[in-house]
């Protein structure tokens, strides 16, 4: 008998469009001191399991069938108060986003003390002492002082530590961690994971880690349950699942994970997920509309894009007097060049200024120093729209969040047609429609998508729409700003495939921005590493990954999840990558 037994659990959400079964006959178990990973893509129902265990299903969700047992005693059918007493005391939970998981108006101390006293019935002083002790355990320096602070006074990582302290403050037997590191930077991620691992071992806590990230799984879990559409398709020791998966979905999933250690030509096609059928037929640029995008004649034979000592600073406060204004340097003296047809990668953690550079190139921001030279022309010098528009046409961008990058009130047709109409790239209305349908078809959505509204599409499909829109100006230079970081891994694989294909077909020049080194490795010819708005080093991708020069780069590489155990079955590795 395990510490926690979830047996044949089904959770259903009745709605006016019929009952939706989020979790369907799931059986998992956790032993003390064991970390069970629940992995799957969005909508697989993994979080719902967590909520069911802690007894906090979002209404109108309800447990349809099955049992949840803690030490053999059923907890899913208890009354609310009994459930409440178990929560935090015996079963606890860690949430994804430390920014929002803490009451902004209460000090850390009061939140800890309150929880401790509710469950352990200590007096106030004892509770305080324990609070400080807990903070020390989760590795917060100077806990005596920090305990008096408010959440907003902690950095993201520190906050997540506080959250963990809160989750553990009543010595629970089981902890459910729902995407505990997703909102954090790579470097922080690693620390938090090790912390969780340590606590779990020391306190003999049974832990369920819910995640979409194979890296996390590989890092800390002992056993894994792979979920797909509400079912557990495969369950077993981590090494086994990663190294030699039986279920095709698991294989597909693993195959889709970008490898830091080798470069693939294309990701294997995953037939398990919604979206597109086979790879769209390649187009011959001679007769295709997009082909006409080759019509710009090179003005000069230097790099296509060149950043010269580019800088931008944002004011922190709006003081009246110049001298009390404070600024932050988002980008400081960055220079690099991108040759026609190459894919240049920018990597760095959040706030390193990589996205700012993208916005500088696209003229969303005006630089406070330096210049952007495109095809021999200093774009930053241009002021009038009339002069800028030709360049705007040539430089397009794919954004990070496919949910906010499409206007929810516009039909896909209009979204994609807008640039065509604006730049008068098509003669007639009919032609516009034809082109749009063709584009949609080409990015693998099918022409009928044109009539629909964005909210009718999944994240991956939306990202395809975004790409279609970017292509609609027949650009020559495409900026991808974290194009896949909001997507599930299998979707990501497909989008990356699509981008690779497009680049080959259209000989696009690309600036590929990501915080995810493996992805960078899959996509880029050369890479620039950024931190605090500065460019630390630039090197050909393989060179960078094999022999990084800058210590920061080395640190980043060292933090990459190791996937040594991961199966290589069915991957088409680029020959030149083996090195």
């Amino acid at each position: 008998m395990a510490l926690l037994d979830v047996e044949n659990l089904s959770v259903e959400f009745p709605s006016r469009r019929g009952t939706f079964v989020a979790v369907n006959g799931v059986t998992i178990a956790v032993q003390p001191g064991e970390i069970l990973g629940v992995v799957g893509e969005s909508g697989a129902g993994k979080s719902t399991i967590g909520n069911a265990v802690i007894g906090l299903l979002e209404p109108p969700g309800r447990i349809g069938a099955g049992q949840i047992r803690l030490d053999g005693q059923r907890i899913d059918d208890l009354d609310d108060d009994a459930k409440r007493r178990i929560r935090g005391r015996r079963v606890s939970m860690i949430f994804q986003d430390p920014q929002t998981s803490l009451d902004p108006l209460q000090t850390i101390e009061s939140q800890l003390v309150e929880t401790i006293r509710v469950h352990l019935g200590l007096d106030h002083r004892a509770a305080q002492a324990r609070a400080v002790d807990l903070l020390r355990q989760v590795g917060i320096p100077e806990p005596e002082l920090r305990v008096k602070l408010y959440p907003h006074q902690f950095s993201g990582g520190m906050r997540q530590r506080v959250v963990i302290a809160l989750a553990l403050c009543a010595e629970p037997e089981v902890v459910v961690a729902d995407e505990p590191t997703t909102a954090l930077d790579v470097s922080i991620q690693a620390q938090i994971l090790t912390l969780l691992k340590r606590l779990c071992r020391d306190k003999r806590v049974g832990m369920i880690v819910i995640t979409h990230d194979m890296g996390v799984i590989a890092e800390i879990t002992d056993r894994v349950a792979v979920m797909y559409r509400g079912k557990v398709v495969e369950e077993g020791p981590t090494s086994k699942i990663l190294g030699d998966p039986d279920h095709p979905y698991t294989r597909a999933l693993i195959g889709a994970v970008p490898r830091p250690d080798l470069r693939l030509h294309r990701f294997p096609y995953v037939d398990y997920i919604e979206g597109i059928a086979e790879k769209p037929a390649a187009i011959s640029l001679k007769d295709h509309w997009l082909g006409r995008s080759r019509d710009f004649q090179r003005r000069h034979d230097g790099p296509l894009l060149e950043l010269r000592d580019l800088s931008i600073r944002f004011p922190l406060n709006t003081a009246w007097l110049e001298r009390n204004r404070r600024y932050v340097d988002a980008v400081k003296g960055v220079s690099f060049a991108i040759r026609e047809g190459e894919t240049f990668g920018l990597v760095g953690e959040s706030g390193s200024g990589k996205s700012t550079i993208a916005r500088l190139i696209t003229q969303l921001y005006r630089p406070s120093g330096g210049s952007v030279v495109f095809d021999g022309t200093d774009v930053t010098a241009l002021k009038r729209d009339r002069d800028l528009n030709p360049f705007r046409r040539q430089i397009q961008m794919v954004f990070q969040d496919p949910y906010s990058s499409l206007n929810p009130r516009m039909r896909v047709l209009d979204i994609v047609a807008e640039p065509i109409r604006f730049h008068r790239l098509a003669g007639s209305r009919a032609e516009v429609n034809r082109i749009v349908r063709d584009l949609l078809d080409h990015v693998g959505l099918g022409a009928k998508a044109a009539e629909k509204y964005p909210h009718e599409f999944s994240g991956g499909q939306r990202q395809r729409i975004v790409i279609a829109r970017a292509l609609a100006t027949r650009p020559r230079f495409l900026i991808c700003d974290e194009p896949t970081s909001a997507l599930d891994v299998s979707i990501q694989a497909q989008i990356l495939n699509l981008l690779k294909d497009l680049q080959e077909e259209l000989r696009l020049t690309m600036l590929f921005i990501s915080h995810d080194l493996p992805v960078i490795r899959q996509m880029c010819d050369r890479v620039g590493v950024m931190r605090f708005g500065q460019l630390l080093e630039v090197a050909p991708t393989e060179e960078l990954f094999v022999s990084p020069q800058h210590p920061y780069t080395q640190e980043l590489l060292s933090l990459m999840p190791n996937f040594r155990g991961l199966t290589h079955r069915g991957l088409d590795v680029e020959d030149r990558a083996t090195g």
Partner: protein
Amino acid sequence: MSFLSGFTDSDLWHSFIRTPTALVSALLTLILIAGALAAPLVAPHNPFDLASLDIMSAHLPPVWMKDGDPAFLLGTDDQGRDVLSAIFYGARISLLVGFASVLLAVLIGVTLGLVSGYLGGRADAAIMRVADVQLSFPAILIALLIDGVARGVLPREAQEHMAVYVLVFAIGISNWVQYARTVRGAAMVESRKEYVQAARIIGIGPVAILWRHILPNVLGPVLVIATINLALAIITEATLSFLGVGVPPTTPSLGTLIRIGNDYLFSGEWWISIFPGVVLVLLVLSVNLLGDWLRDALNPKLR
């Protein structure tokens, strides 16, 4: 076509047909509006036509009371006006004032809100200062003052016919801030979204972006405020009438009717004020209920 089907399929529609209060209030509102619009057709008399009034038939009680006159279902007021007809025509004016003033407020508020939200910087600062100054004055006072000015500057002959527009102007001006603030907030959020950046990258100008991209996305809250404010505007009109700066008594609105009727509350001629009062309350109440439902229905978090 597809839009309609899209609408009948939308959650909004479904929550609508599943919310009795919403249905009832919508129905009520429609009936009242229809009645007001069709006043000349449905009303037995034309209370605005002085020549048709006979003072000798003033103060008649409703027909079901002793010495009530079948010609006047709900009785007559102090001028021999048929209360029923007066209500029809009065509702017309109240609604006119309500809708027009809300429309005005929305136009001003949304425009300024969009501008200051999207452009930010100086324009934003300036507009918001003005808003603060205005906020430092309650709508009712502002309406009073503006009404005063308008009456002052307008040529006197015009005043009779202008009275309604003066009211609309006064109430409208005194309510724009709320919209401006809401829209500003929403516009700020929207303009940071990536679809706006995409549009800018394409090269689309600010005006087009505001109009085509941002405006449609901020209309939700505006709609809610507008409904609530419609009710508020109607009340404000009534209150102004009470303070004596409403529409002229020869073409009374619901508010004016109530004010006139007030003088007869003690004299037992309750029908002069109570019937218009009831209609006013029904109207405002149903509009409020609608706005209420709309607010919850449009709030995704509450769904």
